[in-house]
């Protein structure tokens, strides 16, 4: 990728969104064996039945989330592990958390200037839509929507200012 991703030079959403999208595309292609591309946000908005979260701390502070509906979460897990786990909700959650974790890691590894100074949390997965998401990360927010088996998967990164 030719874009300058240095933390000092690049600033936020319009510059880092392509990096986030590339990080997502690579994880889907390598670990799930499927190609995904961003779609217009207003065309599709993912359900929040399953929300996976990974925190970032250090040079880059914030939270990365991945949201999708139950069927899509199961489909993602199936693609990653095989059909036998499709109905095991714990393993579906575990798989979703790992996908989120790999996206966060892949994203930060693509940014110059975070070398060893940005840590990731262990993933957390929330099931159910009856919650309000509140983050102290009050800075830029970037979001991309990918279609997986024709269903939207929303990946968001909320950063501290």
């Amino acid at each position, binding site marked *: 990728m030719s874009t300058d991703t240095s933390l000092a030079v690049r600033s936020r959403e319009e510059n880092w969104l392509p990096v986030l999208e590339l990080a997502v595309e*690579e*994880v889907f292609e*390598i*670990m799930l064996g499927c190609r995904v591309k961003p779609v217009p946000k207003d065309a599709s908005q993912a359900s929040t039945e399953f929300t996976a979260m990974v925190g970032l701390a250090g040079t880059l502070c914030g939270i990365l989330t991945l949201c999708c509906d139950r069927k899509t979460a199961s489909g993602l*897990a199936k693609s*990653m*592990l095989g059909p036998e*786990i499709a109905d095991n909700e714990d*393993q579906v959650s*575990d*798989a979703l*958390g*790992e996908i989120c*974790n*790999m996206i*966060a*890691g*892949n994203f*930060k*590894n693509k940014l110059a200037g*975070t*070398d*060893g*100074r*940005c*840590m*990731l*949390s*262990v*993933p957390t997965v929330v099931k159910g839509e009856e919650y309000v998401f509140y983050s102290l990360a009050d800075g830029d927010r970037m979001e991309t929507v990918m279609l997986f088996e024709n269903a939207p998967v929303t990946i968001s990164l909320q950063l501290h200012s």
Partner: protein
Amino acid sequence: MDKVRTLIVDDSSVMRKIVERSLRQAGLELEKVVEAANGAEALAELSKNPVDLILCDINMPVMDGLEFVRQLHTVENGKGVPVVMITTEGSEAHVVEALSAGARGYIRKPFTPDQVREHVVPVVGKKS
């Protein structure tokens, strides 16, 4: 290549399965696969189950992968067993820290079976 006894250390059971599958796809014949969810569990497993190869994550609760590698030589069956880190922590600083601690290889997630083959096969069965 002889059949390989393997210890896979990752707090995600899904990732442990994926690592095992990738090892098989990479051409390794696995005689036995022992799993642990963190470094402390892995040290305890090693005292009961000698292995030829260890694949280990870095970010884990209780005891992380770097601390596990540092303590590996202190436990029964641990000395010299080759460890390959498989982790989302991809910075050069982490690679250097892991190799300095005693790891013999480093694979960044997401990873392909080819990358597993490239980093694992050369160290299997070669105690340091």
